[in-house]
């Protein structure tokens, strides 16, 4: 569904992504793990056209989207839940949802009702300003907003960031449910244990490179992952 080949992204003199390749197949949940500054967010920003790669190729559903502009991705079927949620603070919950449907033509009121059914708390808060919601509510709104564009691929950037453990549980349950409804998911996470329990496969990044990848089940027991990302002491072999 999504294929990235040898992508290089630079910020001025800094090379943030040093030629990364990975793929996401239809129906999967794929996670991208890595420490702060490894290039995870840059990868997602590249997939949404916020930072075009200077080398390499991105193909989505057989179409080359390497140079596609940010505002065209939603219409192509890629939804983005940005890091830090980025809710429009001075728009109501409902207006935030309407923004998610900006790239669509025609009526989307059914989708708003579908989101309210999926996230009843958003229905209660529909008239409230986005900036007045709690972190968990904002995360749900950010996900619902991205789903308003009816994406076939959903990109999530650190969905658990700054949330209480119970809320994180709920967000991850929601992500599983979204996949159950047929949307492919690519999620960047610091919370490696949680992400790997949810995902089918995972990639691990270090310093702008993908250093290894495997099924999520294997990564969960991989000593390299356990040592670095699951915070466990590993006995010397």
């Amino acid at each position, binding site marked *: 569904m999504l294929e990235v080949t040898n992508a290089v992204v630079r910020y001025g003199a800094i090379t943030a992504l040093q030629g990364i390749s990975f793929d996401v197949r239809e129906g999967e949940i794929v996670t991208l793990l890595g420490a702060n500054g490894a290039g995870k967010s840059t990868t997602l920003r590249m997939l949404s056209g916020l930072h075009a790669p200077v080398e390499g190729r991105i193909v989505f559903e057989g179409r080359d989207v390497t140079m596609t502009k940010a*505002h*065209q991705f939603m219409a192509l079927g890629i939804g983005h839940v940005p890091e830090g949620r980025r809710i*429009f603070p001075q728009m109501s919950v409902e207006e935030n949802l309407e923004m998610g449907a900006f790239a669509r033509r025609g009526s989307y009121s059914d989708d708003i009702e579908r989101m309210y059914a999926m996230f009843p708390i958003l229905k209660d808060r529909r008239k409230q300003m986005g900036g007045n919601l709690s972190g968990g509510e904002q995360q749900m709104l950010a996900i619902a907003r991205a789903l308003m564009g009816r994406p076939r691929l959903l990109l999530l950037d650190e969905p658990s960031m700054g949330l209480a453990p119970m809320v994180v549980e709920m967000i991850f349950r929601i992500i599983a449910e979204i996949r159950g409804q047929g949307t492919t998911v690519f999620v960047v996470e610091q919370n490696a244990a949680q992400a790997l329990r949810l995902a089918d496969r995972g990639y691990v990044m270090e310093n702008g490179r993908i250093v290894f990848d495997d099924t999520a089940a294997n990564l969960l027991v991989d000593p390299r992952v356990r040592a670095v990302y699951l915070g466990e002491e590993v006995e010397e072999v």
Partner: protein
Amino acid sequence: MGAFAHFLAGHFDTLRLEFWSLLVGGVANGFIYGMVAVGYTLVYGVLRLINFAHSEIFMTGGFASYFVLRAVMGTSVPSGWATFGVILVGIVVGGTAGALAATLLERVAYRTLRRRNAPKLAYLISAIGASYFLFNLAGKEFGRYNESMPQPYINHPVFTIFGAPVQLYYLVIVAAGAVMWLVLDRFVAATKLGRGIRAVAQDAETASLMGVNIDRTIAITFALGGALGGVGGFLFGLGSGVVYTMGFVPALKAFTAAVLGGIGNLRGAMIGGLILGVVESLSIAFVQAAYFDVVAFAILVLVLLVRPTGILGERLGRSA
């Protein structure tokens, strides 16, 4: 004693009449300031910068309507329904010219800088450069003298308020200002494009993730502000004539009005314009006519000192 009281009462009557006359004129001026202030506030909302070339958009609206009306009217002085026809033509031409000039300005002086991620200061210099280029070009091409706008019959009083005559000219300004502002307010609050403008104002990057074309939205924002500024130029020119420097003082006052109301706030721009127009007009009675312009800029300095966010505060995001 009786005679003195009579003199006082008579003096009071003149003062009262003067007050109401000045108030009427101040409100009309205020609506023009408000129309122009909206342009500053819209652009500030989406780009976080002051478009200092807005004065020349005002001038462009004035000259465009001047040339078209001169061609249409010749030396005739229309009255009755023809007056409204002429005013409508002036508004449409001024507004269109203002919108086109603002869009062109955005393309040339701003978008090119945005492509290069230029620092804010570069935009300021670019705007001032564009402003000087435009008004000097107008001076060279259209002459250095004030030309009066072809006059339809608009200076007759329609009714009086406490004895103060309200001329048709003032009514036209108030009606045009109120209608345009209401339409703009609804447009920004309730249409999809308006929502796009607010989204860009609140978080441009996230807006683009939602499918909002930022360049197009910025161009539309300039066009909207330019349209109102161009109409302001026509209505101002109708009373004061057109000249290449006509934009400078009114636009600076409109900028003051935008700051007074809260830059980035559409309602604030209109309220700020009205307050400024009325206060500076009344200052003629209470201070001296010579201090007219001083009062406006004293207000700017005071607002910046006491409440830099203006009366309503900055929030283009919140629909209006």
